[in-house]
């Protein structure tokens, strides 16, 4: 029997005794729950996006003097912010997501971030992906632990990441898939030809790590190739380039709409480390924000009614200095803004406790402080959207170090 088939049965066998019911051939749901596939999409902005200019506190008189060159003008001015709530404004390059804010499908949690003080990109991203800030010894990523607490069987496509490598956040014991949604996605490759697959089947038929990766890949390709036959979007190949994100997001929406197996998705975008010449309404930051906004809007649109069942979290490892530096840019900071889109989010609101920009309110006198641990936002999504219990949440987000639990009020009901 084909290797992929054997592996599938292996996984299906593990499901005996679980409370999961297959509905039709391809969708799985918790027994006695509405058959809407509950999904979580995580978008990580690597490089520390300048949250203070994504959701800018124009109403604070200290904002403009801190940023004489890169500060954004108040709403109503030319190239000004898009007003959110009379005190905060959205970067004008993010106009594409304003309808989501206005229809209350989008919320922000400001002054959000890590309890760990590190300003090293690599450490801070590590801590955000392992969800154990300050702890280096965590072997797996929180999204992999999340796969483990979701209903079995854990088919490789239950959690997918967009890109050529498996990110830390999805690393761990549970199988996950990765795919590229660039222009070559869906095109058949030699490994799809029966003669080729059969030539290699014996060599990769074991249960060692390489064999499992091969078999998972065959399974994923068979399942997803049907989903991906359609359009050939001119998208960028790697997950790194923000400019390719809109097309990739549209294709992701398509994929999620068609395939109920996929419950967790992850994408990362880079290019946010604006030490020099950050720009204001236009420039480096704006050029990266625009495709991010368009991509999120495309994702929401493509999901249609399924947006009810999908929560998208956008996060970054830390924010940037409140004051601009000598090169019209910003340096590594602390607090940032987290985005929450979809599901039953209490949208159209800025959540969290805003500490202000006064000198004694800034962290170490230079950065936006953190008043909400980022794990509280994830915990809220796990609790209210994915319906996880406290013990499951503690498995995914161990109290290491402890934090105050799910952020109340972020989701309705």
């Amino acid at each position, binding site marked *: 029997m084909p290797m992929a088939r054997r592996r599938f049965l292996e996984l299906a066998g593990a499901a005996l005794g679980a409370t999961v019911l297959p509905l039709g051939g391809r969708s799985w749901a918790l027994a006695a729950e509405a058959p809407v596939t509950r999904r979580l999409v995580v978008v990580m902005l*690597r*490089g520390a996006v300048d949250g203070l200019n994504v959701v800018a506190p124009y109403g604070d008189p200290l904002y403009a003097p801190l940023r004489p060159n890169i500060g954004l003008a108040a709403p109503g001015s030319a190239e000004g912010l898009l007003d959110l709530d009379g005190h905060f404004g959205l970067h004008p390059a993010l106009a594409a997501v304003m309808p989501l804010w206005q229809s209350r499908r989008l919320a922000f949690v400001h002054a959000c971030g890590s309890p760990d003080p590190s*300003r*090293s*990109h*690599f*450490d801070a991203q590590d801590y955000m992906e392992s969800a154990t800030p300050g702890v280096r010894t965590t072997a797996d990523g929180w999204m992999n632990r999340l796969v483990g607490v979701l209903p079995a069987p854990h088919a*490789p496509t239950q959690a997918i990441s967009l*890109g*050529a*490598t*498996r990110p830390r956040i999805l*690393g761990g014991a549970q*199988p*996950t*898939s*990765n*795919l*590229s949604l660039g222009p*070559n996605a869906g095109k058949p*490759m*030699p*490994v799809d030809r029966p*003669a*080729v697959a059969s*030539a*290699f089947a*014996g*060599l*990769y038929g074991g249960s*060692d*790590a*390489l*064999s499992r*990766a*091969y078999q*998972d*890949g*065959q399974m*994923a*390709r068979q399942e997803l190739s049907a989903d991906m036959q359609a359009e050939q979007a001119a998208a960028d*190949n*790697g997950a*790194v380039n923000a400019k390719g994100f809109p097309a990739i997001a549209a294709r992701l929406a398509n994929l999620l709409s068609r395939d109920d197996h996929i419950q967790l998705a992850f994408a990362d975008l*880079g*290019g946010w*480390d604006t*030490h*020099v*010449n950050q720009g204001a309404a236009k420039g480096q930051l704006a050029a990266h924000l625009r495709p991010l906004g368009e991509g999120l809007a495309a994702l929401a649109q493509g999901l249609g009614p399924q947006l009810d069942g999908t929560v998208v979290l956008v996060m970054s490892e830390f924010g940037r200095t409140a004051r601009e*530096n*000598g*090169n*019209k*840019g910003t*340096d*590594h900071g602390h607090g940032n803004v987290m985005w929450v889109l979809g599901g039953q989010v209490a949208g159209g609101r800025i959540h969290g406790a805003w500490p202000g920009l006064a000198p004694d309110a800034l962290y*170490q006198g230079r950065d936006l402080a953190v008043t909400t641990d980022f794990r509280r936002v994830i915990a809220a999504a796990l609790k209210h959207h994915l319906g996880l219990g406290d013990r499951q949440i503690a498995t995914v987000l161990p109290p290491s170090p402890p934090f105050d639990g799910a952020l109340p009020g972020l989701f309705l009901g």
Partner: protein
Amino acid sequence: MPMLRRKLLMTLVLVVTACGSGWAQAAEDGLDMHMLNRLAFGPSADSVAMLQQLGVEGWVNQQLHPETIAEPRRLTDRLAGLETQQLDPVTLLERYRPPKDGDPDARKAARKQMRMVTREAGQAHLLRALYSSRQLQEVMVDFWFNHFNIFAAKGLDALWIGDYEDKAIRPHVMGRFRDLLEATARHPAMLFYLDNWQNTAPGSPGAKGKETGLNENYARELMELHTLGVDGGYTQDDVIALARVLTGWGIVRPRQARAIGSQDGFAFDENRHDYGDKIFLGHTIHGQGAAEIEQALDILAASPATAHHISFELAQYFVADQPPPALVERLTRRWMDSKGDIRAVLKDLFASPEFRSPATVAAKFKTPFQYVVSATRAADVDVVNFRPLFGAMKRLGQPLYGCLTPDGYKNTRDAWLNPDALALRISFATALGSGHMPLDRPPPQTDDEEADQPVPPPPPEPMRQRPVPLDADRLAALLGAALSDKTRDAVNTAPPQLKAAVVLGSPDFMAH
């Protein structure tokens, strides 16, 4: 257990049960392949012959002294043909820098030219990895380039990446770390990538325009990534102190270059320098100008944290994803004793029982670069069309010179083994092995120079010949002890056009 490892274990058993020179030979076979897999980018006919001629220890010793090894004409001729790679940074700047104003079409054409320069640098890099007889030198270039990573698509770095590799990295890969550190710190490619060219003392006479203040980027990464490591014991105050030390350390303006008579692209601008005294890592650095940076680099290079950080990286690159702590400690001590003599540390590393242990053999998963290069070396083809190779590396997630962040690419299995990666590698092996990858024919003329074609379409009708697969028997003989019986069986039962593909796509060939 991989065949090579089993062979080594078996030969060790033989030692216990029988004496004689038979053991030495069998062990050598396994050790030969292990050396070619780690100190070179896998076996090629030439390297196997050289190793057999010199014996393992002789070959290792020769590889540790690349200046004693002649380079083959097939390499030096090809390198000489890459015109832009013969030019210095100032000339490259003058010739290829996009005009600041002017029509968008002219700027677009200029950027296209810049990408051409990067492409030539990439071709030079690949040619050396494939054909250099100084294989260990090229392996060390891979290691050190990643350690001192630069992203070629950032602005002017597109022009300078080749010079950076060839002048700042390659000459120093087995010399004194202090010299390597200095060379990277002075190169315009690094100063541009990590923004130090704009690092200016606020209020200094030269502060104007965009260059009006302190920029911490290079100072931080110089400590966190290049020397001490993230746990190296520095504070935010040290980052600021080092940034102040580095003010004015930057890139020359072309007119200035002619005046000072130097074409390497570096210039120290005393008008933008902070001449105050600094406390850096507990040392007082008196304001004196460029000499301060020399002092700072001395302190960083001499630190035990640096010795440990880089010894760990070397042990991880050459021995195991989780390097044995005892080995890392010994290498650290050798580093300190030798004052950062890379060759001395490598000598100890390659002679160590940890490196030569059967547990180490074939235990590292190849990075995409290592996989693509070793497969192409084994195929023994004269590469003229680089696109399938660049395309494959990009699809596998490791585009050449394409790591955005200064920490460089990882080399662990966790970083690279995933379902999609194996499917892509096996597809690459199939295309290459079954004769569907015309690396030795000039690429079709297309305007889309970025075309990523790991599996190129067949050529138009009049030129089409039946694809000729690689010679599977030759491949199997070349790879020798590295191929398991299981793989040899699979090759035997595979159809003729897929036999070579099975060799290159086997689990044996995925590791080294």
